[in-house]
């Protein structure tokens, strides 16, 4: 129905000679067209209802907002007589397409969550509606409004509760605790107010108070898994539950305690990476060509660049690099698009709200230049995912940029596939190539699943059906989602290809974002709802996939926002790292390690020494020190000003097993060798690795870290380059970092471990 309505609307536009063109810049004056106007109308109306005064002024405020928005809508079209003429027809169609889209979202929400969907949708809606308010720094105005409300109606306990929640969002935890204290004086609200106050107290490091509040709240209402979680967190900070906490109120978690030989230490402060910020994406790459892996972190306040000093420490070189002024940044994708040997940077903006992504050309002297406009990449879309690949195998990196939801009533606009013209410019060929999907795209990953030499594209949807596009090899793609068996609805997040079973066919891992209570159930019981865990699609080798997560022991659900796969303990099997959390201030969750032994994954998070609490966006694994110890890096932080967090780095205390790090330099292929496949035979086993061009928040280094367990020699390393050149390197060294240039027989040993 949505499609039919949309096509009718397009037909009306075409009949009137009105072109639907993508936005290339921010609509500073007014919404650019009727569709954006209607979206904005409903967003503002809902926001007005959410923030409406409780003293009787609510209805006039909503009515005034409605009038204002309607006026803006007409103004958006008034400048164009053609648009104005078709407005009476276009407007109802626009509202109808929006209504159909929202209906579909609700239906999918219901399909995924059942009767718990309304509560989940309410929480998410609040975040979406808050988005622009916090982005434009209007939150203190809202806070003042709430303060006025409690002054006007001091007996309104719910208003005090709301004031506390607003204060928490702004990071004013002491003020929040005071408001919750007043709210707790109202008997009906006491349990909720005490739970919220426990969060505020925990956040301001008043752990004993936090524990006391959570325990008292649980005594009033034991059916509060969230309060139980915060009591567990506070008890952890206090070294365990104090003796006066009744046993019935103590919580133990079954999750994260699997056996492992992995042991991590937190080293971010020690090595100079403990920058506080609202961390988002994270990338590890060698920006200055000195052979060492550097780190870039994107954040709301601007990006940071850290130079690897070569002694295990890093120096913040953000200021003056040109990246520090890139505010509201999200995912980072690294790719040498102009083939000059210097990796360039593409940064997406906002993710769930519209923004202008940026392409930075690496000048090679520690600075970067914004070349977005010159490259033809300007746009104003809601985008989260970006990934480089040479989809047409011409040796130049192309770029996929996924279009996500734009706010609560935002519309899905077209994803972008930017073909590299080879002269520093790009052309959007998405529609022509057949990359079209009505579902919001949050994750994207390129991988040649059928081994035909052309990278295919998987799109993870944040709210709907995920999509697999088969690359036909002629510049076009075919949507094979249904027959491949990967399109059942879920709240997808980041995704990547990974041949976990070493059969030579790329399997697909799709992380999933679950509701808060499902995560808490997983943490407590070690098992979550069966259909809401991350998905591991086994490639059956015939164009179809089977989700085998339960067969592989994946039983828990997490609010995964980022993550990737790497062999953490050098045993020759890919392990999974999940960066978890959610935008709500009351939601935090640990980053999770799922260790794979070739048969099953087991959650070893806490045994390995990882923290209980986090809000991890760009989760990346990289051997920062080049000695066979893959570090876990987390760009941490939340959506609200309340949650700036430092970058976290977890380093293995000891190296486990033997390894080989491989760096590839393309000559016929793209310089970064993105899309290259590696086959390593050691100890009687063969592993397959893929050089990825970024797959979500985190961008792994191009360097491939390959664990070989107890093997003391490596029989062979074979490389399938995107140019279809095949190379075989016999007996590469073990416990070393090597570099191979496409077409050259020899290798260079960069470092011995």
């Amino acid at each position, binding site marked *: 129905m949505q499609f039919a309505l949309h096509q009718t609307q397009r037909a009306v536009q075409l009949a009137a000679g009105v072109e639907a063109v993508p936005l290339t810049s*921010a*609509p*500073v*004056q*007014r919404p650019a067209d009727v569709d954006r106007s209607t979206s904005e109308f409903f*967003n*503002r109306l809902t*926001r*007005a209802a959410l*923030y409406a005064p409780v003293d009787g002024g609510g209805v006039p*405020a909503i009515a*005034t*907002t409605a009038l*204002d928005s309607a006026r*803006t809508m007409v103004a958006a079209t008034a400048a164009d007589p053609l648009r104005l003429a078709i407005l009476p027809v276009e407007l109802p169609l626009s509202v109808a397409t929006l209504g159909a889209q929202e209906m579909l979202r609700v239906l999918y929400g219901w399909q995924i969550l059942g009767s718990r969907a309304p509560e989940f949708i309410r929480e998410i809606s609040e975040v979406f509606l808050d988005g*622009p*308010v916090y*982005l*434009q*720094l*209007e*939150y*203190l*105005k*809202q806070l*003042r409004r709430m303060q006025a409300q409690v002054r006007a109606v001091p007996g309104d306990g719910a208003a005090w509760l709301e004031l506390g929640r607003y204060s928490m969002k*702004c*990071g*004013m*935890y002491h003020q929040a605790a005071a408001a919750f204290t007043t709210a707790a004086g109202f008997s009906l609200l006491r349990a909720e107010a005490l739970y919220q106050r426990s969060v505020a107290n925990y956040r*301001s*490091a*008043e752990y004993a108070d936090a524990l006391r509040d959570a325990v008292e709240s649980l005594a009033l209402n034991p059916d509060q898994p969230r309060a139980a979680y915060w009591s567990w967190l506070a008890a952890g900070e206090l070294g365990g539950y104090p003796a006066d906490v009744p046993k019935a109120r103590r919580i133990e978690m079954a999750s994260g305690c699997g056996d492992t030989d992995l042991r991590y230490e937190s080293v971010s402060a020690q090595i100079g990476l*403990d*920058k*506080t*910020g*609202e961390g988002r994406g994270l990338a590890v790459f060698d920006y200055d060509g000195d052979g060492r892996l550097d780190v870039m972190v994107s*954040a*709301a*306040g*601007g990006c*940071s660049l850290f130079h690897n000093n070569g002694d295990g420490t890093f120096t*913040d070189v*953000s*200021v*003056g690099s040109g990246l*520090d*002024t890139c*505010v*509201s940044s999200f995912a980072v994708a690294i790719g040498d698009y102009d083939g000059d040997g210097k990796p360039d940077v593409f940064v997406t903006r906002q993710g769930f709200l519209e*923004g*202008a992504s940026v392409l930075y050309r690496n000048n090679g002297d520690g600075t970067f230049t914004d070349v977005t406009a010159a490259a033809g990449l300007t746009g104003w879309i809601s985008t989260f995912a970006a990934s480089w690949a040479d989809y047409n195998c011409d040796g130049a990196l192309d770029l996929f940029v996924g279009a996500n939801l734009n706010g609560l009533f935002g519309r899905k606009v077209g994803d972008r596939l930017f073909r590299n013209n080879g002269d520093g410019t790009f052309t959007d060929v998405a529609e022509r190539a057949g990359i079209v999907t009505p579902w919001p795209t949050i994750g994207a990953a390129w991988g040649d699943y059928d081994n035909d030499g052309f990278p295919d594209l998987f799109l993870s949807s944040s709210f709907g059906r995920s999509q697999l596009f088969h690359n036909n090899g002629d510049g076009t793609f075919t949507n094979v989602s249904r027959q491949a068996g990967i399109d059942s609805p879920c709240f997808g997040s980041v995704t990547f290809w990974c041949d976990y079973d070493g059969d030579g066919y790329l399997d697909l891992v799709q992380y999933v974002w679950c509701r808060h209570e499902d995560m808490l159930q997983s943490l407590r019981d070690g098992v979550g709802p069966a259909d809401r865990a991350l998905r591991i699609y086994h490639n059956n080798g015939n164009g179809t996939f089977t989700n085998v997560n339960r067969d592989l022991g994946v039983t828990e659900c997490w609010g995964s926002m980022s993550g990737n796969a790497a062999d953490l303990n050098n045993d020759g099997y890919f392990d999974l790292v999940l960066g978890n959390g959610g935008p709500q201030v009351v939601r935090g969750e640990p980053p999770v390690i799922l260790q794979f032994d070739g048969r099953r994954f087991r959650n070893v998070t806490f045994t390995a020494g990882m923290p209980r609490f986090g809000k991890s966006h760009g989760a990346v694994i990289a051997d920062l020190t080049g000695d066979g110890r893959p570090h876990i890096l987390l760009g941490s932080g939340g959506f609200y*000003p*309340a949650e*700036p967090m*430092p970058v976290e780095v977890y380093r293995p205390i000891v190296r486990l097993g033997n390894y080989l790090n491989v760096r590839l330099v393309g000559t016929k292929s793209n310089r970064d060798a993105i899309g290259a496949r590696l086959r390593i035979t050691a100890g009687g086993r063969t592993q397959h690795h893929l050089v990825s061009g970024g797959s979500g928040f985190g961008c792994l280094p191009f360097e491939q870290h390959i664990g070989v367990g107890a093997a003391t020699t490596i029989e062979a390393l074979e490389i399938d380059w995107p140019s279809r050149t095949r190379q075989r390197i016999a007996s590469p060294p073990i416990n070393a970092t090597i570099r191979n240039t496409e077409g050259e027989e020899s290798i260079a040993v960069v470092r011995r471990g």
Partner: protein
Amino acid sequence: MPDVELPLASGGATILSQRLTNHRGAVVLFWSGMCAHCARYDEYLNTFEQRHPEIALLAIAARHTETLQQIRLTVADRGLTFPIAHCADGRAAAGWQAPQTPRAYLVDRHRMLRYRGAIDNYKYRNDAAYAEYLEPAIDDFLHGRPIVRAETPSFGCAIDSIYYALPRVTR
């Protein structure tokens, strides 16, 4: 660092170099009344000059589109007593390479940069991981010692963003 001459929210104008004539140094803080991160430091900033009579403090309200009128309302609303100058054209932030608020600069009498970055690591004082950044730098500076950590990364609200130019989302 470049000198600044700016109007004060309290009236009149201020010139950094003149404020430095009777101080050993100054802390220049890029600040915004709309920034929730800055709001965390109200008390710290209100009592700064009492604690450091030898160091001048100058907050520069630099956020793009923030007006003097808005700043004055914030000052009254939050009872702010530290000196706040207003930079309407963003020149000061550009000259001092300040992308976000709050971002602090400690300069000596000759406006030579001694410290640049965050006030602290934005944790609460009773948090085991709490670390001060600006105070130790001031302490080292006043005692004539080399500043151990002369630069820390700062974070916070963007001084300039296209989102500030978009139509307001609330009434």
